């Protein structure tokens, strides 16, 4: 006895996908490479010492000794002309001249120069015998959950779910339409909704692997953790996958060529790459734009994923973005069913 059509259709779609090595790379390997690259580029490390120039002269040795005590500075002695040239080209952030009563030369619009001025002045005053009037204590924070990589991983996951959801469904459908395979399929007693559902099911099955891979990778390499419930997290990724598959289906519902569908996919996705806070928080956008940004499906997915992953939120806190996702998916799917062209 053959398997039911929905199972055969899902199997066929999954085979088609795993036999396409490029697709497997973009879905599984690419997000990891991206996480790795961005994770290292933005990894938390002690701040670099700020280079400053001490102009050669009778007081240079004494100033050097004082400045060398500061962990934030990298002082060097050079003659006036060389120091001026290095300051101009930004190789040093500040120039210390003037002898017993020092002269600070720096560009006050540069944050590193302002920091250098404070650090240099502090070091020289201390060396000259200044006492601290109050004793302050320091506590350095680099807490897991507040690093850039912790912000980045859910964003990348959301972006990946969007890309694979839309492409995974859209590309194969347009391809099948172009080759008249859809026409051949509707010439059988196959139920049309089963075909579309099979696209969803195969997508959701791959999504599980995709999410587990990326999360395990981020955990092992960067110690990024899911603070909230894994079940909540998993359900949100599935809802995200559903929403973007629905949008992919809608985009592909009438397109006749790969070029046409690519163009439309980009039209939908590019604004979200920029606006939805994948790499940087969307809090910097004007307040007037925020309601629209929050209504975008990728923003909703990223907010929900970050809530659960970084803040340990539960349904009570993330129901809003999740509802937005469900609405996007449901409306897109319903519209796609209406608009879908089989030939």
């Amino acid at each position, binding site marked *: 006895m*053959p398997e039911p059509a929905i199972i055969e259709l899902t199997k066929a779609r999954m085979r088609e996908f795993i*036999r396409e090595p490029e697709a497997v790379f973009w879905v599984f390997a690419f997000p990891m490479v991206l996480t790795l690259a961005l994770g290292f580029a933005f990894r938390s490390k002690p701040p670099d010492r700020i280079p400053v120039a001490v102009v050669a002269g009778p007081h240079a040795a004494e100033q050097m000794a004082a400045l060398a005590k500061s962990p934030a500075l990298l002082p060097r002695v050079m003659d006036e002309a060389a120091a001026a040239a290095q300051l101009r080209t930004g190789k040093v952030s500040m120039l210390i001249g003037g002898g017993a009563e020092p002269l600070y030369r720096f560009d006050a619009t540069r944050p590193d120069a302002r920091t250098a001025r404070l650090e240099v002045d502090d070091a020289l005053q201390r060396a000259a015998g200044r006492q601290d009037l109050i004793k302050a204590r320091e506590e350095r924070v680099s807490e897991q959950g507040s690093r850039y990589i912790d912000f980045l991983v859910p964003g990348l996951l959301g972006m990946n779910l969007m890309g694979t959801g839309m492409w995974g469904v859209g590309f194969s459908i347009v391809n099948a339409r172009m080759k008249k395979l859809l026409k051949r399929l509707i010439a*059988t007693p196959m139920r049309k909704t089963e075909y579309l559902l099979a696209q969803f099911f195969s997508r959701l099955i791959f999504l599980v692997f995709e999410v587990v891979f990326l999360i395990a990778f981020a955990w092992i390499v960067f110690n990024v953790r899911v603070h909230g419930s894994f079940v909540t997290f998993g359900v949100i990724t599935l809802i995200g996958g559903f929403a973007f598959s629905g949008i992919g289906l809608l985009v592909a519902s009438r397109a006749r060529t790969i070029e046409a569908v690519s163009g439309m996919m980009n039209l939908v996705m590019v604004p979200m790459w920029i606006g939805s806070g994948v790499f940087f928080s969307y809090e910097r956008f004007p307040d007037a734009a925020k309601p629209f940004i929050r209504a975008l499906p990728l923003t909703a997915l990223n907010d929900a994923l970050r809530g659960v992953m970084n803040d340990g939120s539960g349904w009570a806190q993330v129901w809003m973005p999740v509802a937005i996702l469900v609405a996007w998916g449901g409306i897109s799917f319903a519209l796609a069913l209406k608009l879908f062209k089989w030939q």
Partner: protein
Amino acid sequence: MADAAIHCRGLKKYFSDVKAVDGLDLRVEPGECFGLLGPNGAGKTTTIEILEGLQPPDGGDVEVLGRRWKGDERELRERIGISLQETQFTDKLTVFETLTLFRSFYREGHDPDELLRRLTLEEKRDARVGKLSGGQKQRLAVACALIGMPDILFLDEPTTGLDPQSRLQLWQVVTEFRANGGTVLLTTHYMDEAERLCDRIAIVDHGKVIALGTPKELIAKLEAPNIIEFTSEPALPEETFANLCEGYHGCAKRADGWQLRVDSLAEAVPRLIAVVEKSGAKLRTLSTHAATLEDLFVAMTGRELRDA
């Protein structure tokens, strides 16, 4: 009389200014093999796709197995098998996987492996569809048409692009299908195919049936069992052979010469040679053959069935 397997009346389909199907009537009896024969663009594919319920007609009425597409679509789909003019399957799936997928759409059907054996595709069972030759793909398309044990098989140009051996195999498959009571509607450009396989043939041109009957009846319409084809230098006008001989039935212009329809070659050929000589022209080629459907088409339309 029992229901016809396929019955359509006054079928029309217009694409902006092209009248692809223009008032076409057909009746295909159960168990019959019916052929639609016609040149490129005659409307064969459009007609067969309307009958298959894949395109809506602009006018006219279609009944398949006594049912209409509106309302009975699912039931009809269970009972017909289709091979489109150019179906491509998913390149990444194997032949067996493709056939198993199609099997899953039907309530009952053949065992995929058994069908692969019948179409001599068993060697390619686990090959990717993308790696098949044109003829193998065509056989897979026919296998997919047969998998649901249909009552009616629709084949749109099933043997175009096949080598002679693959064509013979396909003819064999069609013959077996009919031996079990199946009805076949096929389109083709090939006379020999139509004459060999079909009980009845409709010659279609410009979206209309211009001749209908058994191959024998159609050839008899020519009223001339023999054909002479010749070219001369310089070309001759039609009047030259107007009163060629007893039993001369007319002529048609071919690419670079003439085609004459005659009763008796023994009588006509010597007369033709004499007439050409008398006109001062030189005979370059001369050939004769027994009349075929192709000649009927040329006689009726003045055009060839296939683009030369």
